[in-house]
């Protein structure tokens, strides 16, 4: 295998006035799981579609498994597996028939039963795809991406729109891929998904990668603080909260503050002094470590789901 599974260099793609990819540069190493993390419209899907050859970049260079699209496009497609954001399937074909169909497009294919079992759809093998639930459809889409012993797997928002149980089902599949040492590039706007499943995370916003590292490194790099969240009853005293001891940063969302503290006991003491003085009343306090959500907030000034 090549040194890099995917290499994207200075990718540009524009739709009218919108710059969907604005100088995107990153590489995915073999055996690595890398996530493109960002809100809707950040340019994640455009980047993946350019890598898959579904869209022609305006500028930039993309190599997949050491090859470029064009003359070697079929060769690339024979070695990759892809789950697109919107999965179009023949609605009246059963799960098994769809897996068999896609298997025959590739020179090398896994047995249908094995793939169906891997995504936990054995009981639905004879069910038409139109009768599957959203989570089952997503798992089927992942199954179709795995049917050809792919060297590289692309998953575009595999858990978007799924209920928590269905999301966990897809996560299990991703964890299995991780254990198997597969190279995966997937997009998501769920922080916890990126944190739990990825080796590295590329944070995207407005068509650019604004941070790229392991989740832990990103958090440590941007936050030494601990987050203190609570719900304020009444009008919050913003200035006095920001002036609390050891608070380096404060965020308000829907009137509810998040304080980032380098010394939680000192900050808490100051907080309770405000309560005692009658300047503050609050409930539902949470003390937690900083997350990728906080990193995104610091880098962009807004939450990812905003």
């Amino acid at each position, binding site marked *: 295998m090549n040194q890099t599974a995917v290499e994207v260099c200075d990718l540009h793609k524009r739709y009218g006035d919108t710059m969907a990819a604005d100088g995107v540069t990153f590489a995915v190493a073999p055996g690595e799981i890398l996530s493109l993390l960002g809100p809707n419209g950040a340019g994640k899907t455009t980047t993946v579609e350019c890598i898959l050859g*579904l869209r022609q970049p305006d500028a930039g260079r993309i190599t997949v498994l050491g090859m470029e699209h064009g003359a070697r496009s*079929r060769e690339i*497609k024979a070695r990759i597996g892809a789950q*697109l954001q*919107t*999965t*179009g399937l023949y609605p009246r074909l059963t799960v098994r028939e769809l897996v068999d169909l896609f298997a025959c*497009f590739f020179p090398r294919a896994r047995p249908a039963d094995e793939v169906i079992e891997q995504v936990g759809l054995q009981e639905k093998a004879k069910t038409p795809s139109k009768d599957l639930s959203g989570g089952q459809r997503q798992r089927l889409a992942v199954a*179709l991406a795995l049917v050809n012993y792919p060297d590289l797997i692309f998953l575009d928002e595999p858990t978007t729109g799924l209920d928590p149980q269905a999301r966990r089902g897809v996560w299990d599949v991703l964890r299995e891929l991780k254990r198997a040492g597969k190279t995966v590039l997937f997009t998501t706007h769920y922080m916890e998904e990126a944190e739990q499943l990825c080796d590295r995370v590329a944070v995207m916003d407005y068509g650019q990668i604004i941070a790229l590292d392991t989740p832990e490194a990103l958090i440590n790099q941007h936050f030494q603080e601990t987050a203190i969240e609570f719900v304020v009853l009444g009008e919050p005293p913003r200035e006095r909260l920001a002036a609390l001891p050891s608070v380096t940063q404060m965020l308000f969302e829907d009137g509810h503050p998040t304080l980032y503290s380098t010394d939680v006991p000192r900050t808490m003491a100051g907080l309770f002094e405000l309560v005692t003085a009658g300047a503050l009343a609050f409930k539902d306090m949470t003390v937690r470590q900083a997350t990728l959500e906080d990193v995104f907030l610091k880098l962009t000034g807004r939450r990812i789901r905003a």
Partner: protein
Amino acid sequence: MKEIKALYLTNAREFLRDRMTVFLVLLLPVAFAVFFGLIFGSGSGFTLQLGIVNEDGGLAGARFLVSLETSETEKMLGLHTGARTEMLEALNKGEVSVVIVLPQDLTASLAAGEPATIEVFYDPARPTSAGVGLGLVRNLLSEANLALSDSPRLLVVEEKSVQTHPLRAIDFHVPGLLGIALLWLGLFGTAMPLVQQREGQVLRRLSVTPLTPTTLLAAQVAWRVTVGLLQEVVQLWKSTISCTLQSRGLTDARCGLLCYTVDR
């Protein structure tokens, strides 16, 4: 080749498992053919609604009328007689296509060996019926002229059809059926499924596999040809049923009408 076979089977499964598609592609053309056959197939030929105004009280006018009623072309004529105003009003209403007025002095003129002028009224707004009607009337008057002048027929037409091979039922059926099949295939059998696959992002999903557009197209063509043949079989089967029923006299005239008109 295995990709084409797999896609062919996929198309077949998608088609046969969708009752609405089966209905639209295979059964609706039959229903349409029957429907339009019943509406427009009420006879094989053209019937000229001919209005006669006999202002001549003599023998010539009466003989002309009798000759019309007994002529070979009588079965193509719908004869209406009446007064001039009555017939011209019928022409205005479209109830007759052509009106012939036999003049008052017809018998007298013929007896004197002088030509008589026969007025012929038609509506140019209805060019087809008027054109056919005028031609027919000219032919009738020409025949009448010959009969009145006792002139022998020196030139006789002998009609002979030239046929390179005996016409079989299938030669008769297939062109029309192919036309219907192609029409339906284009509208419902090809365009609709392809648009659905494109809108449903199926084609997009296939485009990230090594499948080539040529292979996809070959499978589509193979399946559409099969659907066309299926349509032919259904149409021929329906034709056979209706013809058999008619020849055995087991059904009413409507079945015969179907056999004669729909299957043309």
